[in-house]
């Protein structure tokens, strides 16, 4: 249990939650009218809970680190390069990959709603959709990064990409040092979701942090 309620078993989805009742009512009406197929809802949920998530993006980054031709393709036509690995579709129709360099750090936000590259990162985390991040990322990105424990040198340029149209951005971080011998699978384990939003950096080899472990451990999201 890693959710923010360490003191008790906190159920948001019991009968007392008014929003659970509201969504249940809506689904019930739509099913009774034959307008939605409950099994289709299950399939959508299963897709974003178990199939489409930041592991996809981590594979894209690891391939870009390992294969200069793929990296060039990713720079030039990210939608096609990413689709070559099988990741395409909803909220990834028009992809742009933005590459960190020694002197520039990229950060992605959607100040107007919650635009996010679902095909490579899955559905966005709560903080990405919430007012504190959306308001501060464009005016005080260093303050935001510090909250994630990321302190950049003062002369590192920060480029913030506000996703105001239908382009969806993923950050390609720079490859960590001392990873020369690693294969794509090992490299992918170093690529965190936050590194691909720009609120983090990749893990160092040998780090005990989980990296882009996804889907979350069984039970992690079931009843928190």
């Amino acid at each position, binding site marked *: 249990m890693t959710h923010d309620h360490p003191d008790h078993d906190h159920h948001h989805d019991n009968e007392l939650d008014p929003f659970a*009742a509201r969504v249940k009512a809506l689904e019930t009406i739509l099913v009774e009218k034959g307008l939605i197929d409950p099994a289709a809802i299950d399939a959508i949920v299963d897709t974003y*809970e178990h199939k489409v998530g930041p592991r996809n993006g981590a594979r894209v980054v690891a391939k870009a680190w390992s294969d200069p031709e793929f990296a060039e393709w990713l720079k030039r036509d990210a939608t096609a390069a990413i689709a070559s690995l099988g990741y395409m579709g909803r909220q990834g129709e028009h992809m742009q990959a933005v590459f960190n360099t020694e002197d520039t750090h990229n950060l992605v936000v959607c*100040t107007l709603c919650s635009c996010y590259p679902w095909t490579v990162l899955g559905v966005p985390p709560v903080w990405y959709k919430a007012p504190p991040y959306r308001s501060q990322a464009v005016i005080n990105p260093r303050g*935001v990064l510090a909250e994630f424990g990321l302190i950049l040198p003062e002369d*590192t340029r920060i480029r913030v990409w506000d996703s105001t*149209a239908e*382009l969806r951005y993923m950050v390609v971080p720079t490859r960590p040092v001392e990873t020369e011998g690693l294969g794509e699978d090992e490299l992918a384990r170093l690529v965190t979701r936050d590194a691909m939003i720009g609120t983090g950096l990749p893990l160092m080899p040998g780090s005990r942090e989980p990296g882009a472990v996804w889907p979350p451990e069984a039970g992690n999201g079931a009843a928190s």
Partner: protein
Amino acid sequence: MNGPHDLGGQMGFGPVAPETNEPVFHADWERRALGVTLATGAFGAWTIDESRHARESLHPAVYYSSSYYEIWIRALETLLERYGFVAADELLAGHKIWPGVTPKRVLHENDVAAVLSRGGPCNRDVSTEPRFKPGDRVRTINEHPEGHTRLPRYARDKTGTIEAVREGFVFPDSNAHGKGENPEHVYTVCFDGRELWGQRADPALTVSIDAWESYLEPA
């Protein structure tokens, strides 16, 4: 519209508070909210622009006190009522009372994978040549429409540089209101942090937006 959603540069919302090992969903109703939102979107009754406008049209007090899935569901109820799929008395009762409108499409389980992997591309051919090229200096318009727009307030009436000419995309300001796709060229426009936030801004900051052509004038 100058709505509650237009958050860039606002203050007072507190820390970002990232959650360690955040689960994909925090409650079962969030799973259903995602699924119902996507499945009803597949009706083809409204566009993504109209659904965004329904969300940003929530009263600011409601918008700021709602989680994002709550915002989605509140806006979805509005859309379902607007198009006659669901009536207000049904939402109160939690059951079907009226037959309601039949949608163009109902999403079935077998079609989910194909529909999700096809997505909804918004790029369109534009008959005119792009007005701007990379390196051009441009100024964003100073307009405050009551309807939907994707030019955020913090980037209005500001001077920036065209970094990239993108494809033509459906114009949200008209498409959200059923007034046609009217595609326009889209540009990535870079602003120096000090142009947006004044002399105290981080000197190493550049912010870009993606702007439809009619949001821009030559500088």
